[in-house]
């Protein structure tokens, strides 16, 4: 009986640790929270492509486009949120964009692209390990007074591959953001 309780005391924390470890999100994943469609018929797009769907897409193109398949194989998930701005949600979205940016910077994400032009505010952040392995990418956009966009790609992805990814996964907002990022200049390095 004693040995059973000793075994239990030893094994239970181990099982708990394994469970907790299993539930830990990958380092490149960012929780933007939940978004809801704006009232009054404003635009709302939410796409959440999980690992199993990415591997299905990879199977479809790996023979025809092996280079693209190679990129997809390095990804774990893709999340895109586009929220149309209305009088009701504008200030909330601005607060959330600021919150996400602050959170990313405090967690060691590097801002690699910054564009502030004609009411458009684009920020591209990269999470790397040992400076050469990309763990995740985040794009946060406040597009004038029209919409707020949040993108999180978990896995090994380069900003210049975003448009291609949007095209292959048929996610139009991602394609659009990808083209914007391609045109933009990199953010100045911190001293």
């Amino acid at each position, binding site marked *: 009986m004693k040995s059973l309780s000793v075994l239990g005391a030893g094994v239970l924390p181990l099982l708990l640790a394994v469970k907790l470890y299993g539930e830990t999100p990958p380092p490149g994943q960012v929780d933007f929270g939940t978004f809801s469609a704006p*009232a009054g018929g404003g635009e709302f797009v939410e796409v959440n492509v999980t690992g199993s*769907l990415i591997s299905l897409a990879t199977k479809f193109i790996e023979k025809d486009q092996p280079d693209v398949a190679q990129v997809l194989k390095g990804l774990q998930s893709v999340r895109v949120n586009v929220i149309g701005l209305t009088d009701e949600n504008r200030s909330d979205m601005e607060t959330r964009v600021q919150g996400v940016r602050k959170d990313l910077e405090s967690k060691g994400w590097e801002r690699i692209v910054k564009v502030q032009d004609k009411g458009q505010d684009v920020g591209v952040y990269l999470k790397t390990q040992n400076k050469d392995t990309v763990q995740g990418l985040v794009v946060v956009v406040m597009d004038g007074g029209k919409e707020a966009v949040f993108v999180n790609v978990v896995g090994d992805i380069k900003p210049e591959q975003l448009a291609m990814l949007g095209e292959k996964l048929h996610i139009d907002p991602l394609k659009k953001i990808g083209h914007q990022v391609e045109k933009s200049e990199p953010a100045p390095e911190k001293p």
Partner: protein
Amino acid sequence: MVTTNRSESSFPLFRFGEIVLGGIVVGFVVLVIGVISYFRLSPETTILRESAMAGMRGTWNKTIALNVGVLTTSAVRAGSHLFRLAPEPQAALDAVRAAEVGVYKISENAGQVDHRAILARADKAMSARRWDRVVGVSRENELVAVYVPRRGLSAQRIQCCVLVLQGKDLIVVGATGNLDPLLQIAGKNFDLKEATQHLALR
């Protein structure tokens, strides 16, 4: 002695009659259930339908609700192999394992519909069944939501449920399929393209 023999010989005959009658009754019940099942949607598709209907006040009229299950698709698949079909339609038939569709129309003009509430209700109910929303698009009077099961997705078994709400029309769709035949067709077409290019170069 004679009486005993009669009773012994009539007993198996009576049992046989019972079995036949039972078989007919069971067969009839199975047939009725089978026929009814063609017009009943799966629980997941029903959840999507109910979530949308709960978000719009008015009288809903069913245009069609059809559910073609595994048995029917298997029969169609087996039957299709008796005919010489082009590879692409054959692959499409081979890929479908089950499909269902429900089309409904609301009689009154619903006005501004709260897509937020519909998505929230559907998300909650589908999540309880371990289905997640992978796509949600809301624009003016249009709403599209796509759900897939949290686990068990593979090329051999892919499942999805779709909700489309456009003005007064509501469409819910569910499908289960095996992508392998389509992948094979895609692979063959690629080889053909490559071969054509190769020959052209020569």
